[in-house]
């Protein structure tokens, strides 16, 4: 099998430059590539187009890259959990493209799967439909949506092996598997890196073919946005 292991986030991101398009896995702060975000921050590259369902919070996740003005454009379904984001958006410093969450997920899946376009019902009759081809199938109306691909996809998994096979945990899976397949270069950071042959082949979420570089991350914070307990008055 093919060994994809690199030492860490810095080596994984060594050839990433300004103005690239990045996909970053995660839903809210759940399943985000914390090590790589820290390395991007340190590297200081700018003009990034980030495709990510959300944009982090003020002091964590992609929010950190917003604060340092490294992000030129966000392509997301739900944003604005943070004040700096709002300021940059309203002042016109930051471009934002909002896409329905299912359409975003499927456009990324299409990117990895070699499907340049597909029809989906989400957004028909709304401002999302502007400029898009509309077509009716079996009495229901759909929009034509195109694939999304990235120069680099950066994903986070629970376990991974040296050949790049990945297993996610809980709802930290979210956008990571589709993004892994849609990057020209895909970088995976994992909580636990194991030798090839350790993971059950029947239970791989992302086959290693999609992953070019893998490393074991460290110091995961896994911040919680809404700590809601059984005893919490909602």
């Amino acid at each position, binding site marked *: 099998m093919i060994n994809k292991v690199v030492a860490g986030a810095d080596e994984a991101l060594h050839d990433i430059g300004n103005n690239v398009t990045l996909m970053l896995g995660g839903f809210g702060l759940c399943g985000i590539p914390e090590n790589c975000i820290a390395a991007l921050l340190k590297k200081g590259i700018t003009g990034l187009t980030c495709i990510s369902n959300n944009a982090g919070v003020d002091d964590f996740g992609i929010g950190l890259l917003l604060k340092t003005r490294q992000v030129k454009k966000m392509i997301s379904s739900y944003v604005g959990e943070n004040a700096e984001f709002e300021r940059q958006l309203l002042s016109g410093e930051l471009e*934002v493209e909002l896409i329905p969450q299912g359409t975003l997920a499927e456009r990324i899946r299409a990117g990895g799967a070699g499907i340049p376009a597909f029809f989906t019902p989400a957004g028909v009759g709304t401002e999302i439909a502007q400029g898009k081809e509309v077509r009716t199938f079996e009495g229901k109306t759909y929009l034509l949506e195109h694939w999304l691909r990235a120069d680099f996809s950066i994903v986070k998994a629970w376990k991974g092996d040296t050949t790049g096979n990945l297993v996610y945990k809980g709802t930290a*899976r979210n956008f990571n598997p589709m993004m892994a397949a849609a990057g020209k270069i895909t970088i995976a950071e994992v909580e636990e890196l194991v030798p090839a042959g350790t993971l059950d082949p029947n239970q791989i979420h992302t086959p290693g073919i999609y992953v070019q570089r893998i490393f074991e991350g460290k110091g995961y914070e896994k911040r919680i946005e809404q*700590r809601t307990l059984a005893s919490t008055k909602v």
Partner: protein
Amino acid sequence: MLDKTGIAKRIAREVKDGMYINLGIGIPTLVANYIPSHLNVVLQSENGLLGIGPFPTENEVDPDLINAGKQTITMMAGSALFSSAESFAMIRGGHVYLTILGAMEVSELGDIANWKVPGKMVKGMGGAMDLVASAKHIIVAMQHCSKEGASKLLKSCTLPITGVRCVKRIVSDMAVLDVLPEGGFKLLERAPGVSTEQIKNATAGRLVIDGEIAEMQF
């Protein structure tokens, strides 16, 4: 008039045995608390889970297990986890039978607006456009009027819409209403203490009142 809990309780009565349901953020999330325990239903979280359980105890908290509102949750026995693409495949494919979500406005044709107020900060539509375009049955939880008293059940939406002709039923703080296929809100039930006259005055879209309207039961 119903408070948020009242709306959630009334919507819970719409839930039938064997349903797969997606609950939106806000009042819809509260509905889970009032689903009778003898019903076997499965709650879907669009970030990748079938089988949402109760909120966790302090010891059960897992940062890798959240719902679409980013709240910590638990899983029921028999749950399944999956990617966002699979989740919306499930939604788009019509496998999630019922969607319950909030609305800022609903038109008498069933259009819904709940994602954007021009001039205000726009946070995005999240999964709402997919959900309203796909679910077989859509129930809206909403306030009948704005704080200023303006009706939110309109002839046509004034805000940018989330989906067209998709809302089937509305549970507001004042009433339960169906959206008729030909257009119009058909009044089904009054909230406790609310008169038909009050509902008439609070509904800007076409209101259809057929005979005596009973007060809702819980």
